[in-house]
């Protein structure tokens, strides 16, 4: 019995070693893509994804799993954008087709899906993702294969640092921290603010750090700094400590599911300070979980559906007609990501991936739904953010803050 087990174990170990060897060996000569039937090698000549009358692009999104609402809004908006482009005759005489893969809200699946798009489907470029961890997993595949990738809503600075083929059409985390500091200081005229951050979230930490630094530089004072960990639902101890410091406002750059409870418990403890946060607040669930307690709070976001700009109102009307709901910020960013890609394909001198990359990098003053998009030399979008006020079951536009 024992020797049989040992034999099985040994063979497993041997198999593992063999696999590892294979993986670390220098890349094998171009082999036919598995099951794809296309003969072109991944990086060899030709123009991947382009035929006489179509251009194939890819998208990876969280269509199922914990962030499914993010992925579905994004996909809907991208489809809407491409329908409009194709109805207007496509680009360079070709229709744009898209292949979408689900990543189940998991980074390892996102990497897998990116691989399929690159090697099997041979797409020209890739759109996605929302969560920064998923985008980073995809970028690790796209960069070495030199496939341009545009993330629609990943705000962590590290995403585009992966390489020169990775872009985004949203602003990055430090900017949001600055926006709220400026809003608190200039618009609300606050001087004493407490910060409550999610200790385990890079997003929350990033926003909180920048907020604290900028707000102090502007002459404000951080009177209390408390933390919580994901999964806890009782924030009373932190809030009681904050209450002692008597701040004018509390900055809480977290996600909507925590914010609702924090708001309730703050009001319950008799805290009347204003609450402020970032784009992680943007969800219908915020109103359900927070109820009346969260009303009158402010958060920074990528766009506001109340913005009277005709370009935005047309997008909202089209999206509503197609999908029956008001598009959230992620939908707006998805639409912009697709349109920036189309614009770059139009401007590119050829349909090579490298030429398209250069055209994306040269995006200047592109009129998007989420603002005028200019990509800087770090491949991040510089554009204004909006501040929204939470009302009864909806948000209200308050201010636009430029970089």
């Amino acid at each position, binding site marked *: 019995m024992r020797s049989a087990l040992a034999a099985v174990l040994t063979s497993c170990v041997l198999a593992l070693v063999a696999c590892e060897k294979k993986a670390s060996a220098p890349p094998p000569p171009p082999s036919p893509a598995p099951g794809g039937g296309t003969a072109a090698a991944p990086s060899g000549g030709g123009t991947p994804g382009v035929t006489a009358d179509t251009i194939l692009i890819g998208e990876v999104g969280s269509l199922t*799993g*914990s962030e499914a609402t993010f992925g579905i809004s994004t996909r809907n908006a991208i489809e809407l954008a491409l329908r409009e482009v194709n109805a207007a005759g496509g680009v360079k005489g070709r229709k744009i087709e898209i292949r979408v893969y689900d990543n189940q809200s998991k980074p390892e699946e996102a990497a897998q899906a990116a691989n399929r798009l690159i090697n099997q489907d041979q797409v020209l470029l890739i759109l996605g993702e929302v969560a920064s961890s998923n985008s980073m997993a995809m970028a690790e595949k796209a960069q070495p294969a030199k496939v341009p990738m545009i993330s629609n809503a990943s705000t962590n600075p590290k995403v585009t640092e992966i390489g020169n083929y990775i872009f985004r059409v949203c602003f990055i985390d430090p900017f949001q921290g600055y926006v709220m500091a400026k809003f608190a200081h200039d618009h609300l005229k606050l001087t004493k603010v407490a910060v409550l951050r999610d*200790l385990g979230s890079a997003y929350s930490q990033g926003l909180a750090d920048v907020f604290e630094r900028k707000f102090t530089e502007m002459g404000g004072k951080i009177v209390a700094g*408390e*933390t*919580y*960990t994901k*999964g*806890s*639902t*009782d924030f*009373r*101890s*932190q809030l*009681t*400590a904050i*209450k*002692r410091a008597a701040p004018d406002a509390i900055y809480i750059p977290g996600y909507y*599911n925590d914010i*609702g*409870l924090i708001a*309730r*418990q703050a009001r*319950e*403890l*008799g805290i009347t300070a204003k609450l402020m946060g970032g784009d992680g607040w943007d969800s219908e*669930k915020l109103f*359900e*979980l927070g*109820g009346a307690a969260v009303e009158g709070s402010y958060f920074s976001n990528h766009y506001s559906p109340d913005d009277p700009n005709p370009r935005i109102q047309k997008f909202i009307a089209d999206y509503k007609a197609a999908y029956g709901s008001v598009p959230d910020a992620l939908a707006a960013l998805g639409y912009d990501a697709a349109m920036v890609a189309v614009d770059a394909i139009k401007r590119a001198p050829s349909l090579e991936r490298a030429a398209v990359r250069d055209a994306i990098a040269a995006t200047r003053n592109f009129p998007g739904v989420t603002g005028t998009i200019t990509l800087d030399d770090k491949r991040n979008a510089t554009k204004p953010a909006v501040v929204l006020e939470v009302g009864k079951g909806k948000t209200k536009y308050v201010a636009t803050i430029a970089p």
Partner: protein
Amino acid sequence: MSDFAQHLINGVAAGTIYALVALGYTMVYGVLKLINFAHGDVMMVGTFLGYGVAQKLGYGNQSTLWGVLLIFLAAMAGCAVMGFVIERFAYRPLRDKPRLTALITAIGISFTLSYGFQLDFGPLPGAAPRAFPEIIVPTEWLIVGDRAVVIWNWQVISLAIALGLMLMLQALVYRSRFGRAMRAVSFDHRTAALMGIPVDRIIALTFMLGSALAAGAGILYAIKDTAIQPLMGLYVGLKAFVAAVIGGIGNVPGAVVGGLLLGLVEEFVVGYSSSSWRDAVAFGFLIIVLLVRPGGLFGSVAAEKV
């Protein structure tokens, strides 16, 4: 001073819930020497059952006394049945197998419940968090100074319910025939069987009792912290398990003391040092207790026969 009082209230409120959940861990460990890792998830199912009943009754933020009672009873009865089923089909067939087998099965049940409930089937389950209705309409009962200390009606009512459940359990374990049988099984189940105690039935009843308490704790938790979601049991279950070990696992008063201590320690760490230290100090406290008293505060160390 006033925030000391507020911290005390917060800590007791959190601690009573840890204590109620810890009781289930401790009772099952007492009779079976099994750490039932699915216990926190049974609590989660209890809150979802209560949520379902509240929806049926159409409660948003109003309710009647009978309605609240019905929510508690339905959740507790539902979880008692579930506890019975889990024991009968998952643990009983493994009772004579090595203890590790049952432990792994418990983890399996825990994952089955917490991830199974994220699938969209029927009216209740689903991954998104949702707000538990305010079945006890919030009213401020005591305000000290300029809202320096605030106590709400539901905090007092929850505390009363928790204490009531604990006293009932105490009476059941130490004053009833069932309790005596349970203690006998816990002491030595083979000898108990020889004395004519129906061991299987006593173990099944212990599971049902622990699960019902978990459901009660779950509803109190939902009244306190509003949001319920399928993974909530993992977090509360872990904390309650720590509470049970601090008090001495297998010991009923120990679980109550352990729960309250843990709640208060966490609260005062945040209040008077830094919130980043909360979990570190809570688990450090566990280690210190175990170093000084390896059996927990109320536990006794059994000499291992070699």
